[in-house]
């Protein structure tokens, strides 16, 4: 169950709208919006392949300029809460 932290660079004017558009609980969670309009988001997925397709779909969203992965964890994790 990979989890990654990404920085989404987008056109500043599109940032607010993208924040709404991209946020899908359990898949993509936008955690921060930065001064320059960049978004910080956490992606959860079932497999690395799945994650690739999520990132690709973010990249393909209008207004998104670049998606950079800053953190990636794919250890096999079990919820112990």
């Amino acid at each position, binding site marked *: 169950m*990979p989890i*990654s932290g990404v920085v989404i660079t987008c056109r500043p004017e599109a940032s607010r709208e993208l924040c709404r558009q991209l946020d899908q609980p359990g898949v993509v969670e936008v955690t921060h919006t930065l001064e320059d309009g960049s978004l910080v988001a956490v992606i959860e997925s079932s497999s*690395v392949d799945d*994650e*690739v397709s999520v*990132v690709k779909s973010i990249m393909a969203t209008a207004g998104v300029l670049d998606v*950079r*992965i*800053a953190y*990636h964890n*794919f250890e096999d994790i079990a919820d112990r809460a």
Partner: protein
Amino acid sequence: MGKDGQNGGPGCTRRQFLKGGASLPLGLVMAGGLVSIPYLRRTGGGEFMLRPPGALEEKRFLGACLKCGKCARVCPYGSIRLAGPEAGVAIGTPVIIPRKEPCYLCPDLPCVTACPSGALDRGVQEVEKVRMGTAVIVDRANCLSLRGLRCEVCYRNCPLMDKAITIEPRHNERTGTHTIMEPVVHHDKCVGCGICEKTCVRERPVIVVQKSPPRQDDHYEF
């Protein structure tokens, strides 16, 4: 395009890394691993001794070498030294210690010409044919290029640059926006001159010349 004549393309390097780049999955852990091999000692222990260009296989070389020192005398760089008593039976034989002075591969190989005994084989006339040993990155963890720094000093100093050492670029996962320019030694082209070992900027060289691995023939043509 542009691959014809003077505007020649960059060759296989580009193709190889494009292929690598395309298949990189997200979150790929840094390839290569961090294997550390203790610094090889070549003198004293009767281990590998780097001989001048054209030297016969070690046993035959020891049999043929007259220990006359002529090769050392003609070497314009003072790279060829004569082994001391710590070398045991090999005392007085010519040896190159790259970290002190490597072989600069004179185009006319004066050491080979000077050798009266044939211990340095006259048949070796081109520097590309020389096989003194093979360079190996023995300490990957301490190689600056492998950590993403722009060093590659060994590559740029290699007299057979782009043949014996090439740069294989790959994505730097840690920064996300830079390239790791990995120097890769090609054993079929490396002559073992030791210039890479000499110029390595680390206190202990992370790339050193070792005994060339023996050929193992099969029928694949790649």
